[in-house]
């Protein structure tokens, strides 16, 4: 399974949930598979997906899933220590680890070689860290969401991208509809 297959398999689990999605191919593939107002697509800024997701989870009560890549997490590795030390039980970090920089031509990352992001997350102090196969990602994500405990999932999949169009939404439209959905979820809860 490649990233696109993983995203397809988790689509039913993340429907209606607040999603912060990594720059480049991951956001484009998610846009193609499941566009929804509760998706925040990153159009720039490599490495900050998990930081945006954590800030969002700490600021409000709905569940937040940050869909990261291994290359992106390696760019901002210290994020794992911030996540560990600022517990947000409504936050799930899903790292789709295909061992490559997918958006730039599948150059290998160190996560595909000797570096284990799951072990790094544990060493940073993240209490619940799950490494799983691509095939088991949807069930692990479901488990994490129902546990209501902050969880880091590292989903090991194969390298490769699907040819999908770039996202043509204006960034302010993405933000506005995302914030509208956050507000709606907040009102629904209360």
């Amino acid at each position: 399974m490649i990233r696109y297959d993983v995203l397809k398999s988790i689509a039913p689990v993340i429907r209606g949930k607040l999603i912060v999605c990594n720059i480049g191919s991951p956001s484009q593939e998610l846009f193609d598979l499941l566009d929804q107002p509760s998706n925040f697509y990153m159009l720039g800024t490599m490495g900050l997906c998990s930081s945006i997701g954590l800030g969002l989870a700490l600021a409000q009560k709905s569940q937040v899933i940050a869909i990261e890549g291994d290359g992106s997490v390696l760019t901002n590795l210290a994020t794992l220590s911030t996540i560990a030390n600022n517990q947000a039980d409504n936050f799930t970090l899903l790292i789709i680890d295909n061992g490559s920089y997918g958006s730039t031509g599948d150059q290998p990352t160190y996560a595909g070689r000797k570096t284990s992001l799951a072990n790094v997350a544990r060493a940073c102090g993240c209490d619940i860290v799950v490494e799983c196969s691509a095939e088991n990602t949807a069930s692990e994500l479901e488990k994490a969401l129902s546990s209501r405990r902050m969880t880091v999932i590292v989903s090991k999949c194969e390298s490769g991208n699907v040819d999908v169009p770039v996202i043509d939404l204006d960034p302010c439209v993405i933000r506005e509809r995302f914030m509208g959905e956050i507000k709606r979820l907040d009102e629904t809860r209360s």
Partner: protein
Amino acid sequence: MATESDRRIVDCLVANEIKFATSVPCKQLAGVIDLVDSSPSIMHVPSNKEDEGMGLCAGAYMGGTQSCIIMQNTALGVVVNSLATLIQFYRIPLPMLISYRGEIGEKVACQVEMALHTKAILGQLHIPTYHFQHCDQLEHLDSIIKHAHVCGKPVAVLADAMFWRSAE
């Protein structure tokens, strides 16, 4: 030990309903960071690096919480991309309280190198920038924070060595 000016700064953040702050430390900002950390109305999430802090603030803002970043000017070299492609591209208001190292009164020579680029970087990014040289200028802080929300942009307050000395 926090000074009266440190207290005025944090009171101003609270009065503007800033409920989320991130920081990367600077000696000059130590008193402000202490007060932010102990404030019951501000969630303080220290960052390892300032671009990470921009991400945290963007997320908190979208979650309905006004946020700010407290950092040193040397880090402007780190955050150019985050300011351009996240904070400005998505039009996120972000007050930045920045200690302006390397100006007159600086004791560490190397700090001067980045001070020379500080206003040029902020100017290149078209970020409204306010240079505080004396604690009396704190009377404008409230308007500056509000300005970030009026224009949906980052705004920078540069507080230099003379400012911090006047605040002692």
